[in-house]
């Protein structure tokens, strides 16, 4: 009997000790962002969530305008959205393949900037995405950031090529634009690259006006640097790899692009082994019908552009891949033919999982290209963007 009580006391003591390890409910430390930061991101559908639907007060793209640099490298704050888009395929001397994406987005939340003495008062919001595809390790790294343009936290310059969000930046080391340094790092990976442009830029669409849907103004201003010689360093898990390769830069700004019937796009930017490039975007409609506003361009080795209309290119999806993260099924292998150029290409992602699980979810990945041009074998590389897919 006495022992019963001793046991009771011991249990009581143990109970107290157990209680002692109990943590104060709200002091539990949240883990720091891991390299898988992206997987914890919330997905609230589309970028439209950030933007209001009301485009009143914003400028719109109605007709072609001459681009002037460095001014047009800078922000066009009166347009609602804008991006500085870098993608590229890289190799280290041992032939290890990498792909990267560094994109700065700018969104105007309101057409006007309220007057204020506060440096934080801003109507411009920047977002940046950084990805790295480590083909050998079959790993895809992503990171994203946001900041307002205020207090020098993010912005872009129209004096020389410079766009930045915190310490991620694309900044010229020359007077106007090139050589351009890309610098961005995340917790577990980083890129630091110098881009030069031996080939120059092309105006996409109709002299830089890229119509996305029939309504006037539903268009963007769009120019590309389709082939940028790239060399620099990528780091994975603190381990640096010096790499060389080819990048592609897109600059595009608009206020409204897609129409209500359109659901998304498949965008291809391919650099072929004969020093030509192909850009094509296929717009998708919500009803699954063919959208006649799809278009693209073929850039010859001498940097002249051949515009491609909707019917100029045929894209056949050969395979699909279901993301384990989002359960979304994406097309994953394509046959692209441009009959006018006698171009028959098969496009294969370097790895399947290049889905960006960030605030706005999309698939953007490095691809390998094989095929024939006028019957002769041709190869290449590039990036494919699959936007607006859902479960």
């Amino acid at each position, binding site marked *: *009997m006495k022992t019963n009580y001793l046991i009771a006391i011991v249990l009581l003591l143990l109970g107290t000790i157990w209680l*002692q390890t109990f943590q104060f409910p709200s002091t539990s430390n949240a883990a720091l962002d891991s390299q898988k930061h992206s997987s914890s991101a919330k997905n609230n559908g589309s970028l439209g969530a950030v933007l209001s639907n009301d485009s009143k007060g914003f400028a719109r793209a109605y007709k072609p305008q001459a681009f002037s640099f460095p001014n047009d490298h800078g922000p066009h704050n009166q347009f609602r959205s804008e991006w500085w888009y870098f993608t590229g395929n890289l190799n280290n001397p041992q032939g290890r393949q990498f792909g990267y994406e560094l994109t700065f987005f700018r969104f105007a939340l309101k057409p006007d900037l309220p007057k204020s003495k*506060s440096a*934080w008062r801003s109507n411009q*919001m920047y977002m940046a995405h950084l990805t790295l595809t480590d083909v050998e390790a079959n790993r895809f790294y992503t990171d994203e950031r946001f900041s307002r343009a205020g*207090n020098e936290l993010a912005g872009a310059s129209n004096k020389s090529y410079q766009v930045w969000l915190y*310490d991620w930046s694309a900044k010229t080391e020359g007077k106007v634009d090139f050589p351009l340094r890309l610098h961005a790092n995340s917790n577990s990976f980083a890129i630091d690259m110098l881009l030069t442009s031996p080939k120059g830029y092309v105006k996409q669409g109709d002299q830089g006006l890229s119509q996305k849907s029939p309504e006037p103004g539903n268009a963007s201003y769009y120019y590309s640097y389709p082939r940028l010689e790239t060399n620099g360093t990528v780091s994975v898990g603190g381990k640096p790899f010096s790499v060389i390769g080819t990048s592609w830069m897109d600059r595009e700004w608009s206020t409204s692009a897609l129409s209500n019937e359109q659901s998304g796009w498949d965008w291809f930017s391919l650099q072929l082994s004969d020093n030509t490039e192909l850009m094509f975007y296929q717009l998708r409609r919500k009803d699954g019908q063919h959208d006649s506003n799809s278009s693209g361009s073929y850039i010859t080795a001498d940097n002249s552009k051949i515009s491609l209309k909707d019917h100029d290119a045929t894209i056949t999806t050969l395979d699909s891949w279901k993301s384990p993260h989002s359960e979304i099924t994406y097309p994953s292998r394509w046959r692209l033919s441009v009959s006018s150029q006698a171009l028959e290409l098969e496009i294969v992602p370097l790895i399947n999982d290049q889905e960006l699980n960030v605030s706005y979810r999309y698939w953007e990945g490095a691809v390998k290209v094989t095929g024939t041009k006028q019957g002769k074998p041709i190869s290449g590389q590039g990036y494919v963007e699959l936007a607006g897919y859902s479960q």
Partner: protein
Amino acid sequence: MNSLLQRSSRNFLWQHPWQLVLAILGIALGVAVVIAIDLAMESSLNSFNQASKVYTGAATHRIIANDGGLDEKLYSQLRNKGVSHLSPLVTGYVKLAQAGEDSFKIVGIDPFIEKSFQSGWQSGQKENVSPDLFTRLMSEPNTALLSEKTAQNLHIQLNGQLSLITSRGQQSLTIIGFLPNTDAVSEQVLAKLIITDIATAQEVLDLFGKLSSIEIQLATDATKFEAAIRSMLPGNALLVSLDSQEQSLREMTQAFSINLKALGLLSLLVGMFLIYNTMTFLVMQRRRLIGSLRLLGVTRQQIFTLILSEAFLLALIGTLSGIVLGVLLGQGLLQLISGTINAIYFRIDATPLVITPFQLGKGMLLGMSVTFFAVLLPAFEATRLSPVKVMARSQLESGSRRLIKVVGFLSGFLIIGGLAVAFFSGKSINLGLASIFLILFGFGLLTPMLTLCLMKLIECVFGRFLGVLGRLPVRMVSAEISRTGIAIAALMIAVSATIGMDLMIGSFRQTVAQWLHSSLPADLYVSLPGDKMGSDKFLFDQQLKDKIAQLEGVQMVSTALQTKLIAAGELTKTTVYELATKSKQSFIFKHSMDDSLWDRLENQPTIIVTEPYAYHHALQIGQKINLKTNQGALGFEVIGINADYSGDQGHLIMSRQIYRRYWPDLGYTGIGVYARAEADLQQLESRIGQLLTAQQAVKSNQAIYKASMELFEQTFTITEALRWLSAAIAFVGVFSALMALQFERIRQLGILRSIGITSSQLSVLIISETGLMGLMAGLLAIPVGFIVAYVLIFVVYQRSFGWTMAFYFNAGILFQGIVLAFIAALLAGVFPALKMAQTHPAEALRTE
């Protein structure tokens, strides 16, 4: 057998519901007070964290600055240099235009920082806190988030307006969303919080270019990183870990907390007496039963277990009800404690009572173990009862008389030991308090012996006049000394603690009053509150000062700026004075000094420190303190130590001239106005009043004196309340002891009745006895209270807070003590007396 044994025990307990209830009450009250203090104290401290969690989230570190605030460029520099996981904050307090509302805290955030912060406004996002809301918060000026509950209370709909009064006048915020509150705690925490975009906060609070702090989320092993951040910080900024900041808040309030907890412990100890008393009663009452059981073959061990199991049951019920009571009491104490912390330590915004299993478990363990401890002696006593011969009560009494003598010796050791501990224990507050407990306990043990002596004395002196009946109460006190002695001791301890604390508070009050008198040399004081980060505040302040100085009737003005400087790696309160000749006399130095001190203060990097600061940092004249200036670290020589009772952490005092040499001008927080002899003060006051903005105020030195003394009284409200609680428990103790006592002598009282003593005579008899006990307790409490006061003043308080004070004797307090003890005992005697008087003598004679 066992179950039968238990049933006999249970039946017995049920037959004495009063004892049962009182014992449970004793444990319950003791546990309740301890838990309540613990909960209230922890909640107050935690609320500081809780509230900031809403906007700091999982931050581990923080960059803070002195009152000048942080330059917002620091944030972009850090960001653009690649430091990530930063959260800039602009915070400030505003008043609602709506009357009767307290001030609200505005927290300006950047909605687009890393999600990993999981701040209150980030995490727990429901439908109503969406990215859309964040973009609105950022892009639409004067938008804010408010707790749903608060919005309801203020009758604000979504997209409704919240009117504020700020230093820039009335402003209006649009409430565009509600902060989700998931539980009662977060509801409280969010209650007085307005979340806005950082730009809005800057605009509303007029804090352009400034940040209040930058929260940082660092990985656990980021010492290198920390160092890198430190190297980027300007002179006025400091990187602190939130843990260490919380730690320092705890340290800051440690003395306060220890003193409170000691009071709680006092209650528990008095409660322990109650348990001891009841268990002894239960054993004594059953000595016949136990004897019979032993005859029947029940072993000692079984008896021991029986008593323990009863105690366990009592303890369990008592502790559980104590926990419930403690939570309720904690709710009440919370206001008092957080009020005190608010008044003398740091600002607490919202204080929900947070109940953790750990604290409840602690209370549980304490209650249970105290009960077991208290019951050991009676339990052993029960096993000692021989099965053959059940001892008569009187024999037990003569046994306890022997014990009392032994205990008398022991008490001598305790008292001497206690005094020794008090004076040779260095800086430890705990030891200081322990010494008080030793002294109290020692005198408590001595009480039975002293009671016996005094009763003998009373009989010798008054015996002749008293007659037999009059002698009876005196005899009863000494005859059942094992009971009465303990009751007297408990009462004595409670009363002497009361006397001691009263004397201490009285002395403290006198000291502070004198200090206040001398430290308010100016006739009028202008207070200039408002955020010192305000970009051009110093210009306005300067202009105001000049205007006041030019007013007719003003002889001279002095100014003060209360700010914080980084001393030895800590933000340290500093008062920067521009002293008028008259104000120099207001300093009470703890050492001899001459006028050269003022020259040095004005012209050399020197400081005066207040007594608490010198005490806590073991500083002496001539030593140097390293201050972080805008030009790097610099040693400031301590040239004076002055008396100051405005806070227990102490502060630094510096001349404005020197301050301006090393730090940016932040204006003033106060202007002292010295009037000419012939000036009409009221007129002057109203004329100054006309120069002031709504937030500024002018007050006479009398008004400040009055307000300060009120604050003083306020800080002791909690002490006062706790003291009464322990007195109440002592009262219950005495009551229970008397009830038990009367019950035990029910037969004796029956005999008296049979002899022809009327029931009212019996009541008088019993009340005389308890009155006598009260008187005894009161008399003993005087010298003990004196010693307690002495130790409190010269040992505990000096160690806790670094204050020296003079001992002020107040005869009224002693008188009060005696009256308190006497009345408490009398009151405690009334009910038993009435009950006994009502008991039918036939039944009384039938017992045993």
